[in-house]
């Protein structure tokens, strides 16, 4: 169980990490990186699965179902478009 100040510390350190990790990104990678970070928050899928897995009423189940489907779309779609964009950077090294 993550509680109280531990949670706060995790939050703070993650925020600094996120800020640092992309602080020196070149402009050409802005779009792919936005897409990449969009993919990463697709992790919401695991939360949606847990929420749906514990649903008891039909209403909860229905909302959970929508949540899981949306989250899967976020994760899969995010990955596919990021991959396609970054695919185009592959020949850079060989060209020079």
């Amino acid at each position, binding site marked *: 169980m993550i509680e109280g100040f531990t*949670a706060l510390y995790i939050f703070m350190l993650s925020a600094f990490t996120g800020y640092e*990790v992309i602080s020196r990104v070149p402009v050409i990678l802005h779009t*792919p990186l936005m897409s*990449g970070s969009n993919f990463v928050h697709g*992790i*919401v899928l695991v939360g949606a699965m847990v929420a749906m897995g514990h649903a008891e009423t039909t209403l909860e189940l229905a909302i959970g179902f929508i949540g899981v489907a949306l989250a*899967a779309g976020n994760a899969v779609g995010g990955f596919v478009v990021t991959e396609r964009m970054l695919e185009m950077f592959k020949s850079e090294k060989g060209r020079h």
Partner: protein
Amino acid sequence: MDVLIQISYFAAAILFILGLRRMSSPLTARTGVHWAGAGMLVATLITFFWPGMENYLLMTAAIFIGGVAAWWTGKKVSMTDMPQMIALYNGMGGGAAGAIAAVELLRGEFNSDIFLTLAVLGALIGSISFSGSLIAFAKLQGLIRKPLRFPMQHAINLLVFVLAVVYGGLLVVSGDTAGINLLVFFGLALGIGVLKTLPIGGADMPVVISLYNALTGLAVAFEGFVLNNAAMIIAGTVVGAAGTLLTQLMARAMNRSIGNVLFGSFGGEQGTEESVEGAMKPIDVTDVSIMMAYAERVIIIPGYGMAVAQAQHKIKELMDVLLARGIDVKFAIHPVAGRMPGHMNVLLAEADVPYDRLYDLDEINAEFAQTDVALVIGANDVVNPMARNNPDSPIYGMPILNADQAKNVIVIKRGQGKGFSGVENALFFADNTRMLYGDGMAMTGELIHAIKQF
């Protein structure tokens, strides 16, 4: 099993961070997304073993439906339309965070008011991101064409926001999280996203999408606290922070503040806008081809119009033809050309234009004065000299490419309309500018053909 789940989430968090780190450099970017993808796969698979879960069949069906639909659209969409797809997938993530919150609030089993508050906050932010991203998608997709503005708009938006916060507070204070208040709360939250995004002009959409991306990250982190899920907390917070920074970088590239984007009335219908004196002077393909065939230095300035016309491959061909004649060809890339920063780089990379021919603002602006032909294809606001010299212009102060300083400026454009921001472009009326009217791809094709004749 519980330990194994925690280990997997820990590994996933590390892979996400390292993946994002690698995505920040062109050399390692490709592997970066694979690292993050591996993290996602591990985290998703292990979650099937989360203790006490049911509804596996429906869950798998939901993953399958959402996943296949996204896979199919993601593979099929053209590079030009990437920005709105990012908006769409981002909205889905926000919606998912909202759905998690809805289920948890309906169940109403919270350990403390702190978790309840976080669930409500996550629901608010996630819902705003969901509906806002969908509107952004509709705008970029061309489903909604004009920014919607009405009197007292900011006041109404503020009122809806305050109401949403009040109802959110009611949920927390009353502890009755499953009643009619929940429905009203979600309705208001979704309304904020719609109302907030509708009046924003298309030119500002990249900043808005980036902002919603950061918001979704934050919503995911908050719901992560509620579900006691470390992977969600870390990944969500990292994205929230990275997305915020990215939003700032983009806004800065356009010389605008985030507040200005959200609360300004950019590209307003009436007001300070001045008309430009002079006339646009047309030119035909033959004249342009002569001009280019005997030039020494050519700078090509692509913009969103190139993306729409799918002209990047033809532009590459034009570059090859000019290079074969010993002409120096460079590409001037404005950081926010297109609908997103880096949009042009992605398209030109797709067409195999070498990376070292692309120059950004600072590198190339001094060179325009020694350039024979500046070819503007589908760019508009990013070459508008009014940003430099007309303090009344809505885009005044935005750094631009100084195309107007080239000896000759050729603008390939479909018609006489204004740019995405709705601002008149003084460059088109300049003495050294000629307009080549037509579809970007068709005109470039004709140009290549004509230059080959010499």
